[in-house]
């Protein structure tokens, strides 16, 4: 492959998964995610991998569970309503401590909603995405290059922490085209999958993959162990981009596609003399609490830019402990917030251009 290629976000994600060693994909088509399935249906067989279109999202996610239990890198992808269908299986995967990558190319909701881009699944993604006490690592790319880099990262993090990782994309990132290149790998050393159910050949004790615990104290212990792992992840895996933050008095917080909009608004605001910067969360769970906390002192106010009715805004309020006002600039239902709207909001909260 040439140094740089021109790819759609969805295709890039699919290719990156294959480059990261994923040879098993189970899914069910849905707009605006379909290019991932379409790309893998064509390319997986060429490398001896498995592409399977299941009879439903529920079937697909349970196939993911099975493949993950056997120790292989496995992925499924869907868009908002399809992710809701997968939520039961995702909870089981978390309960079984299995590594898997799940992709949500978000569209408008609730219900069947619409097929236009959205970020309204933030709560669902960051609050566990299923029943029971658990978290998933949630990664939010903002460019096609970052889609590729974070897909590699997603598989590594899943293996490293033995947990499901969610790639939270959206219709814009999935459908847009940008030049990008593919790295060789992440260079991380990962633990041996000695827990995988691959047959004992009579040589070792049986491995068991299970999420059912017969005694409540045993289940409590398991959940608490998992939360110790979550605490470690919160300490080490928070990731964000700081943009024009040095002297920023007004701090925009935006991720994914809306961060692209916000960036242009910030450049325009700076041209008018306003001291505006952005913290762009790359991990939504763990949320970059440290970066927000650090910025709270210098900030006069925060502004979240979201393609939802305002969901991440709660995490910003929690992170800054409500010490500074947190405003919202948003559109929803598949409508895209314009940079001009963000700029107007910035002027409004700062009391006008300086």
């Amino acid at each position, binding site marked *: 492959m040439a140094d740089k290629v*021109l790819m759609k976000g969805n295709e890039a994600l699919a290719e990156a998964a294959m480059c990261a060693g994923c040879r098993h994909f189970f899914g069910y088509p849905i707009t*605006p995610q379909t290019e991932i399935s379409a790309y893998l249906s064509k390319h997986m067989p060429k490398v001896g991998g498995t592409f399977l279109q299941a009879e439903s999202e529920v079937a697909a996610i349970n196939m993911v569970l099975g493949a993950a239990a056997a120790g292989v890198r496995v992925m499924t992808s869907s868009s908002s309503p399809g992710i809701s269908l997968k939520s039961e299986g995702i909870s089981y995967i978390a309960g079984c401590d299995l590594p898997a990558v799940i992709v949500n190319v978000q569209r408008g909701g609730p219900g069947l909603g619409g097929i236009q881009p959205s970020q309204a699944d933030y709560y669902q993604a960051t609050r566990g995405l299923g029943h029971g006490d658990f978290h998933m690592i949630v990664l939010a790319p903002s460019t096609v290059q970052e889609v590729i880099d974070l897909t590699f990262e997603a598989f590594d993090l899943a293996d490293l922490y033995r947990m499901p990782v969610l790639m939270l994309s959206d219709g814009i990132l999935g459908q847009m085209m*940008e030049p990008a290149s593919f790295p060789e790998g992440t260079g991380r050393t990962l633990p041996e999958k000695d827990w995988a159910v691959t047959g004992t050949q009579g040589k070792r004790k049986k491995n068991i993959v299970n999420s059912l615990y017969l005694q409540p104290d045993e289940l409590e212990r398991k959940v608490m162990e998992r939360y110790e792992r979550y605490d470690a992840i919160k300490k080490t895996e928070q990731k964000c981009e700081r943009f024009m933050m040095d002297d920023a008095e007004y701090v925009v917080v935006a991720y994914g596609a809306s961060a692209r909009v916000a960036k242009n608004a910030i450049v325009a605001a700076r041209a008018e003399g306003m001291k505006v910067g952005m913290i762009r969360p790359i991990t939504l769970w763990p949320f970059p609490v440290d970066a927000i906390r650090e910025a709270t002192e210098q900030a006069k106010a925060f502004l979240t830019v979201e393609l939802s009715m305002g969901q991440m805004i709660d995490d910003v309020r929690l992170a800054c402990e409500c010490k500074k006002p947190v405003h919202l600039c948003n559109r929803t239902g598949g409508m*895209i917030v314009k940079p001009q709207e963000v700029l107007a909001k910035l002027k409004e909260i700062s009391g006008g251009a300086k």
Partner: protein
Amino acid sequence: MLEAKKITVFAGHYGSGKSNLAVNYAFWLKQQGKETTLLDLDIVNPYFRSKDSEKELGEAGIRVIASEFANSNVDVPALPPAAYSMFTADGHYSVVDLGGDDRGSLALGRFSEMLAAADTYEMLLVINQFRPDTATPEGVLEVVREIEDACHVKFTGIANNTNLGAMTEKSHVLDSVAYAKAVSDLIGLPVVMTAYRADLGELDVPHPFPITLTTKAIWSI
């Protein structure tokens, strides 16, 4: 420059730049004084399609025909009934923008017999060396076979649209001439157009077709 045919279809690999080329070609036809219609027959892309340029095309006096469900939340691969007017509208020149690959080209199958009877059509194969699946002539050949099987219409020429999006440089276009020639040699069709962003300046390439990007990034001011 190629001679304008009554019907010009832009087809090819997904993401090779068909919509952008089709819109630019429609503007070019109109500038030649032809009554022009753009048909958005893309049944694959939910958004980022030639219908996005409907306003600018309309202002230039170019008729746009697209599925009434395009750019809405109705996720159905519907074709606009008015598409048949490409065979009936006297004196009109029609530019057809197809969806990518075999999946997208399927939509043209409905019109394959009428196209064959019309005998004045052109179906251009849009190629881009920076798309991984069409980076080699062999890759292009695979796409050609899939598309022709799906829509039962044969390609008549090649439109080289090699680009790296916003990062496209002159050298990319100049270097792609050899690639387009190799594709031409393998599939036995002439290169009738080398498209490149007009702001790159004048380039010494076969059948130059300078274009402007019609789809504006929705996140920019």
